[in-house]
């Protein structure tokens, strides 16, 4: 079997895992199980990044999202409901007919959009500044770093200041409630 066929099979498996685990994530009753399926989703996403030759993004995905952030979420869930409490069944009953109709309509629109996208998708001929071989020559992390701290320096700094404001805001709110 050639490398491309092998990659295609890997991609199909990873994509299926992403879809199935995200559906399971949304439908589990126990919040911890939801969090676990979300970790599986992140993992399969990382495999797709790997297939796209983006090792740095893949490992960052595993380290930051599947690792640190999900650990924080698990920690909070465990702290808040220690008794393995299942989600209260309030959402189902309180949905009116109008809301259900709106949800169904939204679902149909999204499905049509998805089909449209899948049917009329064409590979663009334009080659970007960073094709796979250029990235491989310079090194993955180096390319990301050069872009982040060169071309996109301003948005990057703005984003970090935004995050800092978020942290300070959280501390202020927490202190006021005491």
């Amino acid at each position: 079997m050639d490398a491309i066929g092998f990659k295609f099979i890997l991609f199909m498996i990873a994509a299926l895992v992403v879809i199935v685990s995200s559906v399971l994530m949304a439908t589990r009753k126990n919040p911890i199980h939801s969090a676990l399926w979300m970790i599986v989703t992140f993992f399969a996403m990382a495999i797709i990044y790997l297939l796209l030759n983006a090792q740095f993004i893949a490992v960052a995905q595993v380290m930051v999202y599947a690792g640190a952030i999900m650990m924080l979420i698990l920690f909070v869930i465990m702290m808040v409901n220690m008794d393995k409490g299942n989600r209260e069944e309030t959402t189902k009953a309180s949905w009116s007919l109008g809301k259900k109709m709106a949800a169904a309509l939204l679902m149909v629109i999204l499905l049509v959009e998805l089909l449209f996208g899948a049917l009329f998708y064409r590979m663009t001929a334009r080659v970007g500044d960073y094709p796979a071989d250029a990235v491989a020559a310079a090194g993955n992390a180096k390319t990301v770093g050069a872009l982040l701290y060169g071309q996109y320096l301003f948005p990057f700094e703005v984003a970090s200041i935004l995050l800092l404001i978020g942290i300070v805001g959280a501390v202020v709110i927490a202190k006021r409630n005491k």
Partner: protein
Amino acid sequence: MELYYFILEVVIKNLVVISILMLFVAYLTLAERKFLGYLQVRLGPNRVGTWGLLQPIADGIKSFVKEDIIPTNADKPVYVIAPMISFVAALSMFAVIPFGESVTLFGREIKLVIADVDIGILYVFAMGTLGEYGIVLGGWSSGNKYAILGALRAAAQMISYEVALGLIVIGTIILSGSLRLTEIVEAQRDVWFIVYQPFAFLLYIVAALAEVNRTPFDMPESESELACGFNIEYSSMKFALFMIAEYAHLVTVSALTTTLFLGGWLGPVLPGPVWFILKTCVMIFIFIWIRGTYPRMRYDHIMKFGWKFLFPAALANVVITAFIVALR
């Protein structure tokens, strides 16, 4: 044909590394008990075989034939998967650690590392975080209050110390200019990084102790207050898996310290892998020594220490290193 040779090479390297690692782990349990015994002026295990040399085998057989208990309160699938997560993560961490220069065998140049990837060090940290899930989930799924407390502590400790650990390593990354572990070792050909970064080395040992959950940071399983913490309900092979994972993690962290600060496989006269194993053993001994010396810290002290000392110190180390390298 080339492809088949490549696959054969990878399979053989995997088998060799995993069997050596497992042997190491088995005898590490004995070495730790022996050293701790001598540090506390007693003999340690000495009944099974001379000098207790067959003790690991006896332990293995014992845990294999014990009854496997799953508590009624447990969340079964998670309870079963948790030790496996720990085990797999601890084993796969070793894949990117180089243990020697390339050798030529049967006309093929063979690198003495399973996978020489571009972002090796990040991979090690990613796998390290995943290993922690085994502990957190194992504690949570047992359905036992002590186990849940252990899991909570593991999660909090991991969040606090992983940040510092990542920052500490950035110093060596700046000096070598690469995330690839083989290049980090090559950059230490003249001077080991422990000379340039002695402070970072000390910080790294502290953070690594917290990462592998050993005394004085063994919060998740502090025996005297949590009655063994996260693994309180585990028995038989599942318990053994946790133990193997913990010791494999210790070996990997020691090997990583060797790679980052002690010049990896580099050294005069003796071949690379021998130097690598020697340095790793020295690091492991230091970890055991610390366990025999220090009492367990209090939980809030650990958190305070992590955020108020270790994190700022690591940050300062990054800034100063970057400043000096930029000036050069």
